[in-house]
């Protein structure tokens, strides 16, 4: 079940010409998640600072 599906690292990147599609989708998904986590973290930090000032 856990056999490496490719013969080499290069083959895993290239994926018979489909690598560009697979890796670009992977990048988009992780980038979107990263952006959202960062934005919410920043927003919460900002509002906490604001509430601290009010206190």
């Amino acid at each position, binding site marked *: 079940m856990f056999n490496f599906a490719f013969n080499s690292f290069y083959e895993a990147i290239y*994926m018979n010409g489909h690598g560009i599609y697979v890796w670009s989708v992977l990048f988009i998904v992780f980038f979107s998640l990263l952006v959202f986590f960062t934005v919410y973290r920043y927003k919460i930090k900002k509002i906490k600072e604001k509430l601290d000032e009010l206190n």
Partner: protein
Amino acid sequence: MIKKFIHQFASPKTFLLQVERSYSFIFFTSLCIYVFSIVWGLLFTPEDFVQGNSYRIMYLHVPASFLSQSLYIAMAVSSVTYLIWRVKLAAYLVIAIAPIGAMTTFIALISGSIWGIPTWGTWWQWDARITSTLILFIMYLGLISLHNSFSNYEKADKLLSWLVIVGAVNIPIIKKSVDWWSTLHQSASITLTEKPSIDPVMLYPLIGAIIGFFGLIVCLILMSSKNQIFIREKNKSWVKDYV
């Protein structure tokens, strides 16, 4: 009894305490499951006989697509809860989920388009499933803009909830579009009622990816709702004490 339970559990203060307690656990567990399943799916599953290696996009596309619809249903349930039982937290959740729903729908659309290039020979087709998902994306944007156009939060919450409930009519249309109309998009490989048409070797990492992605999205919703609670309840004494 339901009303009592909802009101006890859904106090913003209790919710916030629960979030603090469980956030790290959900986040790290989901991240591990997601990364493990993605690595498993992308590198350790055999090549598909028909689609070649491009089918591996499934491990990223399916979880996003599944959640894009599920999040709308979650919004509709929250809207009903808010309108019937007047639970404030439910209203906060509706607007907290909307941008995240838009993000997952965006990922589903983009990943589907990229997957379409090697599989269908085109990145876009005006067919039922793709068009209805685009409509869902526009709906999410519309919901966000409607809420942002009112300065009175209570009014905005009510209007948003009504629109979410009416817009929920799109969800069965999206879900069933591949069965009702002839379309390039394949029918669902995993359903609750039938045996999956996908090989177990490919299925297990997919289930892992769905669970992991779901957990990460739950974390995003928790953060987003925490942000909403701070904005809305900033004048309450408990928030000042909490901060």
